[in-house]
């Protein structure tokens, strides 16, 4: 048993490792995501979340989705993680106690329920999608040029709509940050 395993490893270790390049970051991803939920220290939770973003990017790249993985790193590690950290640093602990949303009374059980509800919706859509039912195209890794042409061709309306949404969010943030006008 052990010897057969050893032989498969030695026959072609790079191919054997090929699977582990996906599995290991996936394990890191799950551990980091779990740790960010249970961490007592908010900054530690944010750093664990950043680690899970990085691990997710590595999983994408190991699966051959190079472009998606790199955009994941650029957007989530470069921007989203920093926004989370800034939000934590700029919030005074006393404000956290005062700010009660309509969902604050639900407690951990309510949070878990909301989480599982989101998961159920996502799973329903994943199982309803044609992914995995059709045979995959011969090359799973789409070249960047093909992705760019698809975004600028078939999906250009969605792309522009997202751009408008992000611009609106940016303008909204600027309005919130502006000084109040003197009455």
């Amino acid at each position, binding site marked *: 048993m052990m010897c057969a395993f050893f032989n498969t490893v*030695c026959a*072609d*270790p*790079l191919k054997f490792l090929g699977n582990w390049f996906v599995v290991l970051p996936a394990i890191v991803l799950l551990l980091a995501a779990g740790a960010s939920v249970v961490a007592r220290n908010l*900054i*530690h939770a944010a*750093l664990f979340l*950043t680690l899970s973003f*990085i691990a997710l*990017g590595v999983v994408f790249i190991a699966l051959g989705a*190079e*472009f998606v993985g*790199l*955009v994941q*790193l*650029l957007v989530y*590690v*470069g*921007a989203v*993680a*920093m926004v989370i*950290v*800034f939000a934590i*640093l700029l919030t005074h602990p006393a404000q956290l106690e005062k700010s009660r949303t309509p969902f604050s009374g639900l407690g951990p059980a309510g949070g878990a329920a909301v989480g599982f509800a989101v998961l159920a919706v996502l799973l329903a859509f994943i199982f309803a999608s044609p992914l995995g039912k059709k045979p995959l195209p011969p090359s799973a890794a789409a*070249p*960047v*040029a093909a992705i760019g042409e698809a975004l600028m061709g078939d999906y250009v309306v969605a792309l522009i709509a997202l751009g408008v949404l992000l611009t609106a969010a940016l303008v909204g943030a600027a309005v919130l940050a502006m000084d109040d006008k003197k009455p």
Partner: protein
Amino acid sequence: MMDLLEGAPIQLQAWFLGLLRSFGTPEWILAVLSALIIIGTIIGVFLVLFALTSVLERKILARAQNRYGPNRVGPFGLFQPVADGIKMITKEDLVPRTADKVVHFLAPVVMLIPALLVLAILPYGRGMVPAEMDSGILFFFAVGAGTEVAVFMAGWASNNKYSVLGAMRAIAQMISYELPLVISAIITAMVAGSLSPSAIVAAQGGFAFGFVPQWFVLTPWGFTAGLVFYIAALAEANRSPFDLPEGESELVAGHLTEYSGFKYATFFMAEYIGMFAICGMFVTLFLGGWQAPVPALTIIPSWCWFLGKICFVAFTMVWVRATLPRLRIDHMLAFAWKFLLPMGFAAFLSAACWHYAGRGPAAWILSLAIIGIPYLLLGNSFTNRFAVSRRTYQFSE
């Protein structure tokens, strides 16, 4: 002879692997070794460059300020990095009692990883790219984003108000200057039609009229985008005049305040290697990568050209440091958002028009106009706001 030198690094590696293969080494060991040889060579070259720069920078600064600079250790003070290294390693490693020990320890490591990783996608010579990637430019910026996390970790884990303030400043600066940096890089990708660095270098090959290199920096949009990239690169690398995250007079040393000994040296090394990486990116995107400037000089191996250009760009960065004073934080952020970013967009538009107008003389005039008008408008709005009037002294006369 020159052909021999051109392929020398690759030939040497192939010869060494062939030698091992003749001893009957298994294929997978050879595959791992061939990767390790490339990694080792790159890290070795950049560590030597770092050591040389740490002394040469002080020499150049000294020359600019009319003094000698380090000249005690070895000939012309060239062994100064060895002395500095011994000092750094033997220094006490202080960790504040209230620091977050684990994060404090991890920050320099996290800082060094992206600096080394981005070296993988630079084309060092003809056919010499360690990791040929379809989206190499994207990789450079995506991995480079890790630096911000490291700076934040260093600042927050030190549990020192100067550290946190310095880290906040550094992150605000990096995020602000990342936009013009990425936009000016995207322009070259757009004109070359590829995100792969080697394709961008290839698009700058050849000579117009037989002697003018077709580097992007020699077109109106390329010159603008190149300048925007260079200025943003100075800010990303925390170089003077944008080194205010560690402004000594107000923040002690910013996020580096509570670091000493080898951890400080690691930060220092990561910053310098990051500087070389971004110089390499600048050379790749705008200065024609490993291409020679005139046809007669193509006999010099391509990797020599690349290293030479990197050293030249790094030299200009030291020169800028010797020349310009440090900016104030609000001026610096306003400059990024109100000048560099619009100029980046102008260059973007200009490059698109240049491409679709046929890249001929008419295209040149069109793209010059698209660059020139926003430049004059923006420049005027800046100079009017910071108008320099004759200084009058109330009690001097």
